[in-house]
């Protein structure tokens, strides 16, 4: 791909979000309408290996994010959710290789994208925030300068215009006294404020997609609630799609339209958030729900998921969760398990998907 056709107008055409951006201010906050069924980001049969091909950590992930949709990836540490979103961002760590599969963003194949191509995608079409905001900012330069720099480089704004736009963005992400914050260095700001600064930088060039990898994990609960509220508002105001990664199912349930549950490098269940929370079909999702902080403030027996997840790259015939599953049968270990569609948009990778819900219902009583 050459730079010319990357910048060409047909780039904007496949996703309606860019075309009518100024008019979308009043876009409803609720789930994507039928009009936006084309995926903004689409991963198909993605395989990623780590340690220069020694072990396969992500095994055939397929998922899509539609414009203005908030999709949550949830799973234990080591389940491959971070690798998946890093692959989508084109920032895989050293030694990690995409073996198979495709990543399409707004009709463009990202797996073959050149360095210059990524420069155009990053910021302008995709923004990202991570767990530890302080490590992504220069500690000795004011946060305002760091945001203005992005605006000047990416959008070619003048010094004065970049400064003005920075203050507007700081206001948009809910920072108090934005003019004052502009002149502060990262050490003078709290964790929650820094994460807001990171979000301001990530959305500064009006991207269609924000990737948030454990973006609220290190924050206090009160601040976490505020950042979640901010993401919700940005989606409502700007039609921003969010790929939200977290190990906490409760946080994902709070924010997301759709949930994708990862286990040992595979998607075991995906579907609308309310559906997954109300009627989880996969035994792993049911277990995650039982251990999640459910907003229950009573004294109770804290449950655990027995056993350990398989080692990264371990080859297992059949279901990867079978060893820890209370409902595992012979059929679970005999061969690969294909995802089953149990309901509209609700897919489960379990041979007992139709029964599992009944079992979960019994257990809950």
């Amino acid at each position: 791909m050459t730079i010319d056709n990357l910048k060409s107008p047909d780039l904007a055409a496949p996703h309606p979000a860019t075309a009518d951006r100024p008019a979308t201010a009043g876009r409803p906050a609720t789930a994507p309408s039928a009009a936006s069924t084309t995926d903004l980001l689409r991963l198909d049969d993605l395989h990623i290996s780590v340690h220069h091909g020694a072990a396969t950590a992500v095994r055939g992930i397929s998922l899509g994010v539609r414009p203005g949709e908030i999709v949550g990836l949830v799973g234990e540490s080591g389940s491959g959710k971070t690798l998946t979103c890093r692959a989508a961002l084109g920032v895989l760590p050293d030694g990690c290789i995409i073996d198979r599969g495709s990543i399409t963003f707004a009709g463009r194949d990202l797996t073959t994208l050149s360095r210059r191509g990524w420069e155009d995608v990053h910021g302008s079409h995709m923004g990202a925030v991570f767990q530890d905001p302080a490590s992504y900012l220069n500690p000795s330069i004011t946060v305002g300068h760091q945001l203005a720099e992005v605006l000047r480089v990416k959008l070619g704004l003048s010094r004065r215009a970049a400064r003005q736009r920075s203050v507007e963005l700081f206001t948009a992400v809910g920072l108090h006294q934005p003019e004052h914050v502009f002149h502060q260095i990262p050490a003078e700001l709290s964790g929650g404020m820094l994460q807001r600064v990171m979000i301001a930088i990530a959305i500064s060039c009006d991207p269609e997609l924000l990737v948030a990898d454990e973006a609220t994990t290190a924050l206090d609960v009160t601040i976490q609630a505020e950042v979640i509220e901010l993401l919700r508002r940005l989606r409502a105001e700007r039609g921003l799609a969010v790929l939200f990664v977290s190990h906490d199912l409760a946080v994902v349930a709070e924010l997301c339209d759709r949930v994708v549950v990862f286990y040992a490098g595979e998607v075991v269940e995906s579907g609308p958030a309310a559906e997954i929370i109300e009627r989880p079909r996969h035994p792993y999702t049911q277990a995650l729900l039982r251990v999640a902080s459910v907003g229950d403030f009573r004294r109770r027996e804290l449950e655990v998921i027995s056993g350990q997840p398989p080692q990264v790259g371990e080859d297992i015939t059949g279901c990867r969760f079978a060893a820890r599953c209370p409902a595992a049968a012979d059929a679970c270990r005999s061969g690969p398990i294909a995802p089953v569609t149990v309901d509209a948009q609700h897919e489960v990778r379990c041979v007992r998907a139709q029964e599992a819900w009944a079992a979960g219902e019994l257990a809950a009583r």
Partner: protein
Amino acid sequence: MTAPAPAPLISPQDAPLLAVESLDVILGRGWRATQVLSGVDLAIGPGEIVGLVGETGSGKTTLARTVAGLVSPAGGRVVFEGTTISALRRGARRAERRRGHLQLVFQDPLRSLDPDMTVAGIVGEGVRLQGETDGSEIRRRVVAALGQVGLDDSLLPRTPAQISGGQRQRVAIARALATEPRLLICDEPVSALDASNRNYILRLLDQLRTSLGLSIVIISHDLSSLAGIADRIVVLYRGRIVEDGPVDQVFAAPRHPYTALLMASAPSVRHDRELSPQQLTRTVAEAVALPEDLLAGLGGPDACVFAPRCAFAAAPCATQPPLVPAGERRSVACHRHDEWMTLARERAAARTSDRNGDRSRGRTTEGQLA
């Protein structure tokens, strides 16, 4: 699953194991000096699990470090097992620390455990510091401590990097248990773990309380899982205790707006909260609408620590309220602890009608556009 854990073993006549009395801690010197704790009173009874909650910078960790003798208080005292340990100096303090009756467990075992030492060395270090020189006795106690946290001796020759995150935190707890402590202070022991491991560690601490009669202080900001095991909750805000009481009562009816804010902010898979965080904190618009002298008072140095964020702050809140008894075994530091809940409900009702108004306005606009 077993029945809920027994009621707290403490009764009011029991002498507390640890008593912290009007503790003031100032960190830094000269113009850098910051008062981190102000007048903290806290008593921990034998066999009690106390959850200490609060946000970053509220002084939770400083309180733990002061109790352990790592920070010298500027005022007040710390009494542990009848000894005023905050008054001990040099040799006496070192001797007290080496007894190992009070142990700390830190948040990130990868950073708190020496990466070059084996599990055997890490867990046995405290025993050696207690003066034990017999190698086989040290090993016996190390294996016993590992057994108490559900690990076996196959881990002994491994280093922290060679075991999983959940196991590492269990090794950190075994290290603390090896010296047979009376009080365990766990500083965010589960924040770095996923939900399943988090519950495992908390359950383990609950079992240790029962089997060893340990008193445990758990510092955490995850209220929901604390509610599962703690007997008492102590809420710290900007270096002051704002609420203290039995866990079930505090969570059933918080008396301080900050406790309510923490509960409202906790993520939940259900959407059935009575109050949202927005209803408990003051919006910028509301702050602007307040009379100027009141606003200045609420932001002043003598004001209630929570007043700058509190939606219910009024004129009396320009002075810091003391921690006063509010019901049986409960105390709260809020001038309006009897009133704010009613105000919050009114606010919630007002918001709902507002939002309905917005929605109908929105519909008209859409209608006009169509």
